[in-house]
């Protein structure tokens, strides 16, 4: 009886002062799904199955998002409104740990393409792939990972690229690639040939009004993503 009581007290002591998951609140509500288009799946941490992602759904650390063909998921990080758009045929794992009012963001890009716009923040954002890591120090960038090649285009700001073979600083309007087994290097590829930079992949309807010399008006409506 006394032994059982002691054990119960020990368990209770542990639960009170060190409740399971007490520090796990740091990894909750890391991001939010703002928009979805097409086929967007969500795999919550610890679950084996995928569910359909919906607008307004909360993402915790280690949740996974994947998109199908002609699809898009727009995520916003809850600490600083940094935006992340997961483009078609992509899969990412969102990792984040709260540090006071900031979230240290690590996005594991399994495959596919991302666009991100980082707002003012006090902690870094990292994009991790098997070929290397991009640490964002700037504001806007595109990246993709496929067949072991991690491509990064820095639209504005600075991005530090690194893997076990080297480190490279990428400045505005520069593009670099990281491949398995080699250090990061700057490439002269036109980013327009690699990334769809037209409207950052939003699913939208664009209406353009024309007026001819006689004043006749016509509208052209384009659905695009």
């Amino acid at each position: 009886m006394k032994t059982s009581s002691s054990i119960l007290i020990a368990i209770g002591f542990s639960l009170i002062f060190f409740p399971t998951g007490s520090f796990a609140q740091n990894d909750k509500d890391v991001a939010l799904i703002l928009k979805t288009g097409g086929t967007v799946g969500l795999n919550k941490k610890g679950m084996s199955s995928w569910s359909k992602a919906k607008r307004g759904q909360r993402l915790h650390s280690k949740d996974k998002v994947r998109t199908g063909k002609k699809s898009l998921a727009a995520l916003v990080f809850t600490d600083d409104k940094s935006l992340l758009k997961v483009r078609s045929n992509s899969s990412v794992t969102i990792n984040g740990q709260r540090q006071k009012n900031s979230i240290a963001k690590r996005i594991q890009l399994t495959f596919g393409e991302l666009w991100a716009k980082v707002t003012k923040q006090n902690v870094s954002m990292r994009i991790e792939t098997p070929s290397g890591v991009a640490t964002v120090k700037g504001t806007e960038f595109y990246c993709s990972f496929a067949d072991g090649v991690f491509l990064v285009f820095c639209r504005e700001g600075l991005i530090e690229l690194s893997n076990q073979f080297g480190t490279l600083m990428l400045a505005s309007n520069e593009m670099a690639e990281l491949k398995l087994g080699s250090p990061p290097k700057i490439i002269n590829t036109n980013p327009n040939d690699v990334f769809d930079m037209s409207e950052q992949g939003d699913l939208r309807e664009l209406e353009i009004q024309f007026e001819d010399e006689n004043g006749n008006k016509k509208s052209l409506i384009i659905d695009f993503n």
Partner: protein
Amino acid sequence: MNSKIFCLAAMTLLFFICDMAEAMPPQSTASFKPELTHVPVTSLRQNEKLVVRARINGAKEQAVFVRLYYKPFNGDSFRYVEMRPSGDSFWGQLTSERFKGGNFSYFILAMLPNKKVVTFPGANPYGNPIEVQVTGGSVPATAIEPKPAPAPPEAITKGSGAPDSGTPLLLLSPEKNEKFNIGQEVVVAVSFLDSPDKAIDMNSITLFIDNVNVTINTEITENILTYTSATITPGAHTALVQGYYKSGMKLPSVKAPFIVKRKKSNFQDKLPFKGRLYAESRHESASGIGYHDSNMGGYLSGKQGILKYNARLYLTSSEDPKYQTRNRYSLNLDTRFAGLSIGDVYPRLNDLMLWGKRVRGIHGRLRFGIFNVDLVTGQTARKIKPGFVTRDTVAVDSLVRRGSFSQNLFGLRASFGSGKNFQLGFDYLKVKDKATDIQQGQHVRTPRDNVVIGSDLLIGFFKRRVEFRAGVAFSLVTDDIYGGPIQKDTLDKYYPELDIPVDPSDYKNILIVNLSTRPLDDPRKGKSLAMTSSFRFNFFNNNLVAGYKIIGGEYLSLGNSYLRNNIRGFFIQDRIKLWQNKLYLNLGFDNYDDNFRSDDLNSPTGLQTINTGFSIYPGQGWPTFNVNMRNYSRKKDIDFLINGADTTFVGEQNDTRDLTLQVNYNTQIMNLKHAISFSFINSARNDQFLPSAESASNIQMINIRTNYQIPLVTTINFARNDNNFANGLNTFKFNMIGLKGEYPFFNNRLTAHAALNFTSASGGTGANAIGGAVTDYKRTAFNTGARFDITPQQLLGLEAGLISFQDNGFTRDAATVSNRNPSFTDSVIRFYYEQRF
């Protein structure tokens, strides 16, 4: 007992370790990383220099460079100056001219030998630089909201960071005035940025949508609040989040206006289709003769389930049985796998056979992707009766206008492959004039019968950036079917080598064969064969296209009667993109043999064109340039005939060179927006055999469109054209200047315009010789009008114009000195109405 206490302690410790391990952030090496230390400067007096010092701690080697990046308050991008080493630190300075004397921001960046970069501020310096307020400057001191200085580097590396002194509520969604479609989920999300000394009371958080408390349907956790609804009614709405701190102080609330788009509810938008109707009437009086023309029409399109449809109608008062029809109508029905078009259709089967010719009939199509069928049948021309006039002095009516036959077309195409990356097509076309429409001798040309068979291939790779196309067609045409088909024995008599096993008259329903049929010799000679091929390669900033074609001298398809025959040759052209698509180079070369038939009495003529040019689009704020030079030459293989075989023969060798320059520029001068366009065209033709065919032209055009600060828009244009023919024997000069103004009234519902145009022309063709002519006229045109938007879907327009033509030119004949050209005054009035739905 001791063992029990030990077990208790061990279990407790175990729980603690497991919990900490799960919650532990990724191991940070920041404390072992090199870092920049610097005391930020947040304010300066005007004209004071910025002097900064920074030190790199934790680095084993000297930095490769240290730079001070800065950006003025309204600047677009950061610039930098190098910082110099001084002892164990680096220093740099900025004079006030660098930041234009106003507020600015800066950060420091150091590159280490191992290519590591350290910055101050440590994270995202571009987005979170140090902001410096310059007091006593032209920019108000309050231009930048005061912010606390960034936390000392030690604090940042430990990850604590300085708390934001603004509102603890961060609105994530919606953006201000964000628009949502009706039925779309509206997401309201707010993040709670807590601080230890100002904890938020989560139980006090409330969310209102348009003053309605919806907190009960809101998910609130310690980090964020989220609310989602797809049933918010159309219109403007406001989301409001309020609450309190645990201390009882009220939180700064967060308000977010947003809009749910209203579904159009007026009658027009309840219609299952959309389109427009229009009517126009125009009356012109030219040299005292009135011309009147009215037309009306419309267009509508819609979708019903799987069926898409559209219809067009155009009716004109110019419709006249003496001419081909000018009215147009069509109805198109399309589903995913099938389509039907009735009325005036413009089918495209094979560009060697039928490519966009108007057919009044039916075009049916099946589209299964793997297999497709197109069938088109109808009339391409209607019968035009010959015109006769009765004269009292002549017993028989006189033919004053020849008639035309009606022409019927039947086309069939079967293809394999959707055409996205592959398609193989087989085509059949028959076109035949109805010979019984017009009596012999009263027609413009003899009635014809034409059969064409062909095939085409398309293969594409990489989303058709690499593409191969080929087409082949063979034609049989009988130029005169009045006499009907001939018998086999007659054919054998005139063409014994042909040895056709069948009697052509048995197949008159397929093609009427007689002595006017082409070809009647061995088709393998290729006289009626047409082949084309092309290859396209769109990679590495090149859009390269090359092709070859050979069109036999007797090839004719009445479905594409404008296709030039008796020609063969190749072309190659490339469009190269450079300098981030701001510079385009165009290069082209083609070489053809015209009249290449060896059995043709005409001498073959070589045609060669070299086309070069470039276009520059530097970007916003800069002019665009287009320059093109084309050299076109024609040369016959034979310069002259010997022994006087043909006294009419003239050799041919000439070159025409065209140079075109275009500049377009949108700019702002004296606070007015101008769109300026300038064109220069220079053309010269040299002829080795016919000096009278030589010519030179110079054309200059300028157009300036100006938007004023009042809603007035003016357009000024000027054109000048100097032409010189036959080495100055004939000349023609043309000058034009025009001015147009447009002004809107009544909140842009009424737009009025007025335009004045002066033109003068002078020149002559052998003015002093009999039969010569002098050109000398002046034309003044005035035009005014207005367009009124009755409703956003209805508009009414009225235009009137007056043209005065003063002609001092004349022609010189044998009897008198000159025959003066007439002068006249024209007037035009036009009315139009349009309804959109």
